[in-house]
């Protein structure tokens, strides 16, 4: 097994589009067999991280990110974080980072926000939401006022994914623009549903009322009206 894994790690150096994926399959097998072997896991992670620091092809680094999605730890964050600004690898870096349950990830994603182009920023915002990063509420709230409506809308949806009371408050005080009001409405209602389920009818009601006051689309208006009715029950 070790010899096969060695060959697979070596194959990553030149693993490009069109090469049979079976040559790197021992990596997937090692992920399974090392599940209860912390030392072997650490070794595997270290060897994969090392590939990210080489000139290996995009396909190879993508394959490494797929593996780190499953086994990556805080140790992988310093190698993955620089890739967030790489147009070709930013998504695959998030592919790993988004699912690694280490606090360092949230910090790395927040740190990358001001350093990346608009499209990549939307991806990072989305990952912060998917991770429900509580520490990201403040930077996401700031992005609600971004001049790019796509970024502001993404920040709204991310806050809707986080669904904390703080996220709801950030959305309630947001100033909806033409390109963001439906996203803010949708995210606000996601928060309101969580508040309602938790028994916080007052905060949920205030959220729905704010949505209605923002003159949203008919779909959002109908949804908020139903939400208000649910609060009254």
């Amino acid at each position: 097994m070790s010899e096969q894994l060695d060959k697979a790690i070596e194959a990553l150096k030149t693993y490009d589009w069109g090469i049979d994926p079976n040559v790197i399959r021992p990596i997937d097998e090692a992920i399974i067999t090392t599940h209860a072997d912390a030392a072997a896991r650490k070794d595997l992670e270290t060897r994969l991280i090392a590939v990210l620091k080489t000139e290996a092809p995009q396909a190879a680094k993508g394959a490494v990110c797929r593996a780190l999605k499953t086994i990556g730890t805080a140790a992988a964050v310093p190698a993955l974080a620089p890739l967030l600004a790489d147009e070709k690898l930013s998504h695959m870096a998030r592919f790993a980072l988004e699912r690694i349950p280490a606090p360092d990830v949230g910090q790395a994603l927040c740190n990358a926000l001001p350093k990346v182009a608009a499209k990549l920023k939307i991806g990072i915002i989305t990952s912060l939401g998917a991770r429900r990063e509580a520490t990201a509420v403040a930077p996401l709230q700031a992005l609600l006022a971004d001049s790019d409506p796509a970024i502001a809308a993404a920040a709204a949806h991310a806050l809707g994914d986080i669904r904390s009371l703080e996220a709801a408050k950030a959305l309630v005080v947001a100033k909806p623009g033409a390109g963001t009001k439906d996203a803010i409405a949708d995210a606000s209602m996601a928060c309101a549903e969580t508040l309602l389920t938790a028994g916080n009818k007052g905060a949920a009601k205030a959220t729905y009322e704010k949505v209605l006051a923002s003159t949203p689309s008919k779909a959002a208006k109908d949804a908020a009206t139903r939400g208000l009715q649910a609060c009254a029950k």
Partner: protein
Amino acid sequence: MNPNPEHQSTRRDFLKTTGAAAAALGFPTIIPASALGQGDKPAPSNRIVMGGIGLGNMGSGDLGNFLNNPLVQYVAVCEVRGNVLNERKNQVDGKNGNKDCKAYVDFRELLAREDIDAVHIATPDHWHAIQIIEACRAGKDVFCQKPETRTLREGKLVVEAARRYGRVVSGGSQRVLEDYRKLVNPCWSGELGPIKSINVAVGPLSQQCNLPPENCPADMNWEMWLGPAPWAPYNSKRCDGNFGTGGGSWRSYSDYSGGGMTDWGAHHFGGATFAVDVRELQPAEVTLNDEGGKKWISFKYPNGIELTHNRPGRGNMQVEGTPGEKREAKKIPEYAAKGGIGADFLECVKTRGKPFRDIELAVNTVVVCHLGIIAYTLGRSLKWDAAKQQFTGDDEANRFIDQARREPWQL
């Protein structure tokens, strides 16, 4: 029929206004029979205005069904392959006797149309959740081909979107009710007694794709085909919509599909969970078994019923009951209208009822498929907390609940 009263009044007012204007100008008011309704075909103002997103193999069939349904006024098509897009537009125009069907490459433009009541979606699986959610946010009812989701997290979010916006959202497996009658009837009638287990034989799992680059056809929007999936170079086999799952089709590859496990799995697991009446539940335990190197899975439901996958010695849809023991007969749920699952959806769009394959039930089926894939991939048994939508005591398995989407796509 348009469930939005504002739309209805607008169209009726239009007919009324144009009729009055024609009379004032001295023209004879000739309104074609098709505009007034004919036989069982309602007037346009009472039809469900529809568009289709993803019109390849399955989408083409769905288009045909909806286009030929007298309840539907079909007005828009969306597809990332130019040749397919043109063919479908011509098909719709030919049926409608005009050139009015609008063609879109970007589904968001279709969803932005306020006159459209409902959409059917048959894009590759990695697109489904985003498009269902966006359609709900735009106030559209949705008929989406199975499997309705690509990840576990998507299931929760599509159901939430449907409920938040009060939309009728139907999953797309016609086989659940139509193919398994001989199995459903004795289960629901009580003839088989209390049900212990049912087996499903389906596969395989999808695999990683690393096909070489090819020249992308000029009329193919590759970025929109990939959408939220990891970037990869165009290859005709990567995006081929044929029904194979052994390579050479997007159904074979894990960035776009769960393979046979979710493709036929959505049918078989859907039929099985319906037959043994656990379609409103999700499994609590997923046990990976190994018999002489042959891996198989047991899904245990909270009510004790066992659903197995590829269990040695058991056939597909083989039920284990308790003959001789009594069980009360239950009324079998049916479609809301004759004409199959599409007609069921349309009837529910009119009545605002829940379709037979309501999205929550469809998601419960696909959850089985996803749970099975994760257990096979990790090579171990799992415990699933349906209320929390997470695995219990297995942080690594929880990493498989979702995956990052390529920017700028977001659920």
